């Protein structure tokens, strides 16, 4: 048995390299590798309680993320307002996706209560859509303040510091930050990266094995 394995070691390594190459090609053909990248500046005026934040074609990366059949589990908006002056109220988030014709092909919603003893609050909106989901992703963010709360959040979205998050930061009214971001679960990106490295590594190792490899060990 040991002899047989030693004899075939070279074949195993080449087979492994070929399999890794296949995974790499498959992952490349069906990529799930987008990073949402652009900055989005949105400001709610005082007294304004509702605002649709549409991720325009400028934020193409977000949209392209939903362009193929994928393993996105969901989106996760979050409110984060730092340590000081935490507001009360409730944050409602609707999300939907429209195709090129403007027709709605997916919708989901979530809400999160904001309270003074919480630093952050998250809501989770599962995306159970299967199959191709391409088009424009739109968020509607509605902040309902607590009774007696006079200020409304000023929202600036940025994701420069958070790899896969859309961040909405409170700029003026509160001492801390008010963040609103979503997390997309990308499952195949590391696979793509690992597959090409494993493939190249095994090719390099296989090239150090001559046709006679294993024979001396068997002898």
């Amino acid at each position: 048995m040991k002899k047989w394995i030693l004899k075939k070691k070279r074949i195993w390594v080449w087979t492994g390299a070929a399999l890794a190459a296949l995974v790499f090609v498959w992952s490349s053909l069906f990529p799930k590798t987008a990073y949402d990248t652009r900055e989005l500046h949105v400001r709610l005026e005082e007294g304004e309680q509702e605002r649709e934040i549409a991720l325009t074609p400028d934020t193409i990366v977000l949209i392209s993320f939903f362009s193929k059949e994928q393993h996105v589990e969901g989106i996760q908006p979050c409110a984060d307002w730092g340590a000081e002056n935490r507001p009360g109220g409730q944050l409602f988030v609707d999300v939907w996706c429209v195709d090129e014709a403007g027709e709605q092909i997916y919708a989901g919603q979530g809400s999160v209560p904001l309270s003074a003893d919480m630093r952050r609050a998250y809501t989770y909106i599962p995306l159970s859509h299967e199959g191709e989901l391409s088009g424009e992703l739109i968020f509607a963010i509605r902040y309902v303040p607590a009774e007696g709360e006079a200020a409304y959040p000023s929202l600036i979205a940025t994701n420069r510091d958070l790899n896969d998050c859309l961040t909405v930061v409170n700029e003026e009214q509160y001492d801390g930050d008010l963040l609103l971001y979503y997390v997309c679960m990308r499952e195949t990106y590391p696979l793509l990266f690992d597959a090409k490295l494993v493939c190249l590594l095994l090719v390099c190792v296989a090239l150090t094995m001559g046709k006679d490899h294993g024979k001396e060990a068997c002898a």
Partner: protein
Amino acid sequence: MKGKTWLRRFRIPLTIVSVLALSVLLEAFFFNRHAMFQERYQASGAIEQGSQETRLDLREEHYIKTVRVELAAEKTVDYRLILLDGQGNEISERTGSISPKLGVSVMNLRAEAAGLVLSFSDVPAAGGVITAKNFVEWSPYRMFFFISLFGLAAFLWMGRRIVSGKPEYAFAAIALTAGIQLILMTGTNQISYDEQTHVSKTWNLSFVGTVYDTEAVLELKTLTAPEFHNRFERVQAESYLESIHDYDTADVYRQTKMVYYDRRAYLPMAVCIAAARMAGLPFAVMLMIGKLGNLLMYTAVCFFAIRKAKQKKGLVLVIALLPNSIFSASQFCYDACVNSFLLLAMVLTVNEFLTPKERVRPRDMAAILLCLIIGSYAKPVYMLMGLLLLFLGNEKFPTKCAAWIFRGALTVLCLCMLYEVLGKSAVGGSAMETLAHAGDTRTEGTNMLGQIRHIFSAPFSYAGMLLSSMFVRIADWFTGKDQFLMYAYLGTPGTLCTWIFFAAVCFSALAGCPHERQEHLKAGNKALFITMVSGMSAVVWTSLYLSFNAVGSRVIEGVQNRYFTPVLFLFFICFMNRRLAWKRSRESYYMILFTVVAGLLLYANWKLLIVPYYL
């Protein structure tokens, strides 16, 4: 004769008893000598609400070991403590602060005074108590330091014959002793570079799918956890963090279940933290176990690097025991992964260059490439060191054709890793687009694309600046302007230690060890290694210039000495020669190295941890 046999039979238990007895005696009669041989003393006074100054009259001069100030402060309160002599004259002054999270500040005074004046920066909103005392106090940390110090010395001396034949065991003993001291004594203090970022990534990685951030974790992630300055404050800090480490009120959020390549260096720490969490250990212990995971990984990989080295095991040992590396391995930091795996990769690579006529074994090649990849996960730029393998002779491969295909595949592998520097950016899109947005947000005016354009607009002037920066930095290490040996924010053990360390490295590189195989590096290989070291250094400087410095900056800032650790072995191996050899025994050769590196590490721990925190 009979007595000698008896001593030999019981030498291990006798040594253990001696080590313990010596440590206890030191603790009792040296560190507590004032309380043992002079009077034991305690005096307290009330701090009045609204009173900015409090006086504690001790009537006559007493030796005061510690002063404890308790105050229910709402925000951090700074205070000055003035020591008075018998005539009421000021002897000296100390400063401290009280964190509202702890409500107490303890100062190791170790001075004589007849009175104390405590004055606050702000009028305290609540009352409190000041206590001055001199009592016998057993410090478990100080005792652990001495037990481990004497224990290590005894191990190296008694096992000198064995460990000089297998120096990797001595390495493991020294690294674990110094590392565990560091872990135990730093506790929950965040004293390493960007530790909040490393803690954050480690903590998140210790969960699969759903992350629970307790308030204690959030304080560590935002660098707002209370810092302690001695073991009395440490108790308060740890109990405070424990009190807010509640999973019922934790932030709960989801993350991807995949482990991204740039987070994999944190896996040993994350696994240990997850295990400690599942075992229900206290928060502070859980953090220390996380750090222990890092140290164990570093020790294990370097252990194999020393074992696998065909030549210059002593050099590998000294570089693996670089105080900066042991410090990083004992904190939340990815440097341990980078340094250890790249050291092992370079040792295996040099082994191949030392045996140009022998065919490279597939498992060795797999090990080299795997170590290079793992070592470069956190810093992909080091993958360029793998290009050394391009220069292995055709004789190392089964056929000439295989050798050339190997070189092609290796080049693609290195480029793939390097591409991740650009490809993984949060900006996405094309490489040019990525470059246009990349740059460290901590420095104003950074822009990678702009900086590249700037370099190409004046390449010679940039080359001049790069070379002068590199040479000035090396000169500064030896003149003391810049400290090579650093324990991050704890400081440096001193310029003398840097000299001693480099003397030990040069000794191990220049002098051949008796009983070691005498393969030799060709001059061409040495030139290749020096070129690689210079090239890597230039890449490190340039990458910092691109990412951390404002466009057009006339100086290169942000380059830390730890970035050069992965190239140290490659540089110093070039000093190996056949002329210089240690004429005395192998035992004495290794005992010199063990003594110097262990001495440096333990001295650094003494100076930077015991003296400021536990004396």
